[in-house]
């Protein structure tokens, strides 16, 4: 097949999205929308008592790159700690996908933002202030 605008990995995740769907008893749900593309991405997180991602699912209204980015993001998230999730950057998602066209990088940024939004809502659901996420991010930046 002639090479299209997307890598083989992107096409694989587009055709066979991993972890697609919803988690009914999710304890952290993140949703972001991108006005440039009109895409909407939703991440459902189930985080266990040890702050480890037990399950994650996604739903996306968007293009091939948006679907593949969210699918790949969920694969990279399973089994990770909350701290590790905050270190999951869009660059890591792009690398894992074997690259994205420049105009589609924003799709991976959306995935990164959806993860952070889900984590904020995770802390809020536990009755905590989501500023804890900012503190964790500041700490990660300092350590790096």
């Amino acid at each position, binding site marked *: 097949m002639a090479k*299209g605008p997307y890598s083989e990995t992107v096409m694989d995740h587009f055709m066979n999205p991993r972890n697609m769907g919803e988690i009914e008893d999710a304890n952290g749900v993140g949703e972001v929308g991108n006005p440039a*593309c*009109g*895409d909407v991405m939703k991440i459902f997180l189930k985080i266990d008592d040890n702050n480890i991602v037990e399950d994650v699912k996604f739903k996306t209204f968007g293009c091939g790159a948006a679907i593949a980015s969210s699918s790949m993001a969920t694969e990279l998230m399973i089994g990770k700690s909350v701290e590790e999730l905050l270190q999951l950057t869009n660059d890591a998602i792009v690398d894992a996908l074997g690259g994205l066209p420049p105009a589609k990088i924003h799709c991976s940024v959306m995935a990164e933002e959806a993860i952070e939004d889900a984590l904020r809502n995770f802390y809020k659901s536990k009755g905590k202030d989501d500023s804890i996420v900012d503190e964790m991010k500041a700490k990660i930046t300092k350590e790096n």
Partner: protein
Amino acid sequence: MIYLDNVAGTKPDQRVIDKMIPYFTEHYGNPSAHFYPIGREAFEAMEAARVQVADFIGATADEIVFTSSGTESNNLAIKGFLKNSANKGKHIIISEIEHFSVDTVVTKLINDGYEITKLKVNKGGLVDPADLEKAIKDETVLVSIQYVNPEIGTIQYTEELGAICKAKGVTFHVDAVAAAGFVEIDVNKLKCDMLSIASQNFFGPKGAAALYIREGVKVSGLLDGGFQERGYRSGTENVPAIVGMGLAAEIAKAEMAEYVPKLEAMQKKLWDGLGGLFDFLHFTGHDTRRRPGHVSFWIEYIEGESLLMWLSLKGFACASGSACSSNILAEDEDDLVASPVLTAVGVPTDICAGSLGMSMSRYNTLEDIDKVLEVMPETVQKLCEMSTMYNQK
């Protein structure tokens, strides 16, 4: 693969290709070289093609200028005409659903002091001739309105628009690129002064196109150089492609009556079939005034590029006006823009997203339509299940 993107370009007719080959291999002379046989042969073949193209649109051969593309024809028509009309006025009228090669050209003219009126279209994509009549003023020098819109298939009231321009004494250009080979073109019925067509859109090769310039209308060439095309278009002509375009024009003229009814049958089958599949599918364009074999629509909850890619994986080549699929080679996401045509006919911008166009040619069959209708439900279902929007109904 089932090819359903014939507004982007058609498969060339084999008879056309066969006729072109000797103009690469044997008659390869420069058509401006009249004093040896292979140059003269190239020239004569090109002039025969000019007659064929003229006959196709009801013009005479000396009213045809060969160019390289529909875009070049539109540029030559507008910029070349305005070089001679500046002292008559600086007002131009187009519609808001013109091709980029008209819209961009006139929008840039604002910098040169031109005033541009972009006529609104209704939900079906039609310009109201009464709106054109009202918009024309003393300073108006040029009206450029397409015959058929490639994205939504709408056929304008071009004859009526032409009559208004003629009565008011305003020069009328018609971009007929998406019409040629699918809708009959007669420059006298349309009462146009200039008209653009491109070979690749009616079963000819890429790289050949034409601008009809009515006798007496003054147009200046855009390229400086030699005397080719009587000065309208310097540069050695693409003889093989022009020869192919000539035959493609002759074939279209002779055979449209035979294949257009087949296109209409396929169109009806696809239209009725799709309409019965989902209550969240919405057709775009006009119900009856549309290019034969053209069906366009948008689907709620799903995005156009995803739909396009899934259909491609299943073996169907279609088109989308979604922002996401607009300019995949762009360096920046800001260059992704939803189709202005869909926005103009009232499709919400965020939903332009899910637009799709399918345009058949004489090479498609009713069986192709069966296959489309078979694959659409599962494809749409799959994307709906994935979509954040679907359950929020």
